[in-house]
């Protein structure tokens, strides 16, 4: 006892000595400097990361194109003259583009050089022309100037990703091709324009034809399943646990388990999905419904935790007032507590969804990491998601996919930022403070 009474007497004396005071102030200054430098380091790393991605990805939003006078030769497209859709569909449209190139460069006669010439344009040029003819069959027999996509090698070359003075054997664009390209540039027949294909097409092996739309649709379908399962389950569980459940050992056990579930690595949910949904229930592989179910399992603990925090924040006086005027427990909860807690619940849900949007690991096990060209039309069609698309492109040998990868990352980041901004707005608009 004597010790405890003695210390307060001596401490102020020691603390008030000018030397100690200086030390304490210095310690505080140091701490501030640590804090500021931590923030600066984080900001620099973030800016460097975003900067390098944006720098690499920017060029992927543009595509080099070559203007050609295409003659829609009826002999090639529809020799029978029946205009039957099947015949129009299966005709060889690439020939039209090749012929147009040959007319543009009549001096090229050597067979090898001719093949090199056709490599200037995208191997998908024919499919573009087919699309035009199928839309307006009246084009057949006419000649018109069209901008045709260049091949990815030419595109990289024009965007200066490949050095012009490198030895010819090291370049994918050879000397004679450079001569043709220079001629096209001189006559204004080669230009770079905004690439809408990137936003409207789905995956492709040819970088100039690849786009993210298929993956965006897949992500959307998957998240719809995730949301429609994890939101009601999460909210109902939180409501029951917070408002109705008796406090006993069982509810404590459940609570601990929910908190643990929120920290389980996501790949584990993928394994669970493989074992449960695919093996036992026999659901289709690569389908958004299975992906959504797996991600819902991963998301709903997050939603329960956020919803419970929001429900706890509603002051008891609201409940007591409602009970005092004769409302039943259910009425109190549904009419007063839940609406007041809704902004918090929504915020938790959106953040959970944003996490689900960025996941690839659990989807690997259920076959959603796949090359899928057809745009999914339902919950059971094979589909892939945005982060998986990024992963697949990052692994492709073609040089042009490097830029596409960064561009897709930018799109994914934009979605994530938008979702988080929505969470912030909801909180600002509707949250009530007591």
């Amino acid at each position, binding site marked *: 006892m004597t010790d405890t009474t003695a210390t307060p007497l001596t401490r102020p004396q020691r603390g008030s000595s000018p030397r100690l005071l200086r030390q304490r102030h210095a310690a505080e200054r140091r701490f501030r400097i640590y804090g500021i430098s931590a923030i600066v380091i984080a900001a620099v790393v973030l800016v460097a990361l975003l900067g390098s991605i944006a720098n690499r990805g920017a060029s992927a939003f543009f595509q080099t194109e070559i203007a050609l006078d295409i003659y829609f030769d009826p002999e090639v497209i529809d020799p029978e003259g029946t205009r039957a859709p099947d015949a129009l*569909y*299966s005709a060889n449209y690439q020939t039209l583009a090749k012929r147009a190139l040959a007319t543009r460069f009549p001096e090229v006669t050597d067979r090898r050089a001719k*093949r090199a010439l056709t490599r200037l344009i995208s*191997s*998908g040029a024919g*499919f573009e022309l087919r699309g035009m003819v199928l839309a307006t069959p009246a084009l057949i027999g006419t000649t018109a100037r069209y901008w045709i996509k260049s091949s990815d090698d030419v595109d990289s070359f024009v965007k200066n990703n*490949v*050095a012009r003075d*490198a030895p010819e*054997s*090291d*370049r*994918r664009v050879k000397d004679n091709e450079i001569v043709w390209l220079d001629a096209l540039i001189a006559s204004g027949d080669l230009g770079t324009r905004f690439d809408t294909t990137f936003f409207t097409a789905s995956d*492709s*092996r*040819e970088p100039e034809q690849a786009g993210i739309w298929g993956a965006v649709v897949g992500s959307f379908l998957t998240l*719809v*399943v995730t*949301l*429609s*399962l994890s*939101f*009601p*389950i999460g*909210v*109902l569980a939180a409501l029951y646990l917070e408002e109705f459940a008796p406090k006993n050992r069982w509810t404590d056990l459940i609570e601990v388990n929910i908190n643990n579930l929120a920290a389980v690595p996501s790949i584990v949910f993928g394994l669970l999905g493989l074992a449960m949904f*695919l093996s036992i*229930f*026999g*659901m*289709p*592989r*690569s389908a958004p*419904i299975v992906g959504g179910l797996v991600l819902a399992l991963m998301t709903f603990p997050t939603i329960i935790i956020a919803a419970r925090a929001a429900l706890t924040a509603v002051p008891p006086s609201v409940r007591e007032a409602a009970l005092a005027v004769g409302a039943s427990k259910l009425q109190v909860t*549904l*009419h*007063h507590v*839940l*609406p007041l807690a*809704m902004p918090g619940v929504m915020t938790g849900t959106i953040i959970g969804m944003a996490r689900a949007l960025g996941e690839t690991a659990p989807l690997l096990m259920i*076959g959603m*990491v*796949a*090359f*899928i*060209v*057809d745009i999914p039309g339902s*919950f*059971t069609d*094979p589909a892939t998601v945005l982060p998986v698309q990024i992963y*697949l492109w*990052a*692994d*492709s*040998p*073609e*040089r042009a996919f*490097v830029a596409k990868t960064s561009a897709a990352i930018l799109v994914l980041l934009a979605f994530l930022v938008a979702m988080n901004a929505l969470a912030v707005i909801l909180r600002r608009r*509707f949250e009530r403070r007591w």
Partner: protein
Amino acid sequence: MIKQSLAMAVVAGATLASVTMAAAIPAQAREQIRIVGSSTVFPFSTAVAENFGKTTNFKTPVVESTGTGGGMKLFCAGAGEDTPDITNASRRIKKSEYETCTKNGIEITEVKIGFDGIVLANAKSAKRLTLSKQEIYLALAKQVPGPDGKLIDNPYHTWNQINPALPATKIEVLGPPPTSGTRDAFVELAMEGGARTFDTLKALKKENKKAFKAVAHTLREDGAYIEAGENDNLIVQKLEANPKAVGIFGFSFLDQNADKLQGAIVDGIEPTFEKIAGGDYGVSRSLYFYVKQQHVDQVPGIKEFVAEFTNDRAWGEDGYLVDKGLIPLPAADRKAMRDAANGMASLSM
């Protein structure tokens, strides 16, 4: 009032949606081909799948990159409709895998599609390496024969310790992890080939195959060999940044990055398209895909897909797969393989 009914509507609507969705689990027949397997064959398989989808009225096949071993496991799991129709492989099917397949009532057709070279490459800013298989083995094995012929832990830290003609830089090799088929093939072709040049190891192979494999197939773990993940693009980028490092990957990545990287000359042969196609380059392997015969009549388009793959416009010398880095079979082999594949000849081992 508005807020509370909104909240109720959201909860109710979402519950309803989830209930209907859970009830709508499908049972319809599969319309598109499903392909799994090797990540090395993936670029070729997907290119054919895309062309097949765009030029026919069939749906575009779905291609998953699971690795050769993972693909075989899925493929051989059964003949049911929930199993894949085709699996890609960067090595031939193993006897054990074939037996699993047969046991599960699966008959398979083997299609050899071409070759792939495995290259050791470094950045253009450094000197091109000239290596023998023995030197590759000495640089990368965990244990090598010492001066007295007994196995010792790998003592080499710089290339010129192995051969004075090599540069005096640290041995630093970036390569694929054990799950990769590229690694399997590299170990089998280059490392084993190098190990066999030692008489003691040759003798070991004769008396104890397993012990020999353990010596020849184990890469060093002291930091000289760095597992760089399955992503070959990552290795390419790291090589550019570090001219002293050497990378191991498939020829197609060297082909795409020829302005930045150069392939090491192995046993006097440079890894070029012609040398690999001609079988001169020592570290090259065959690529395959396997078709499940039970699915040919069940899933629409399998026959047509095989026909597209084995068409010369795809796998021929001027085909689109060559643009993707495939090294085609000789013309006579292609013809024989095409006939066998389109006739769905059964594989027996």
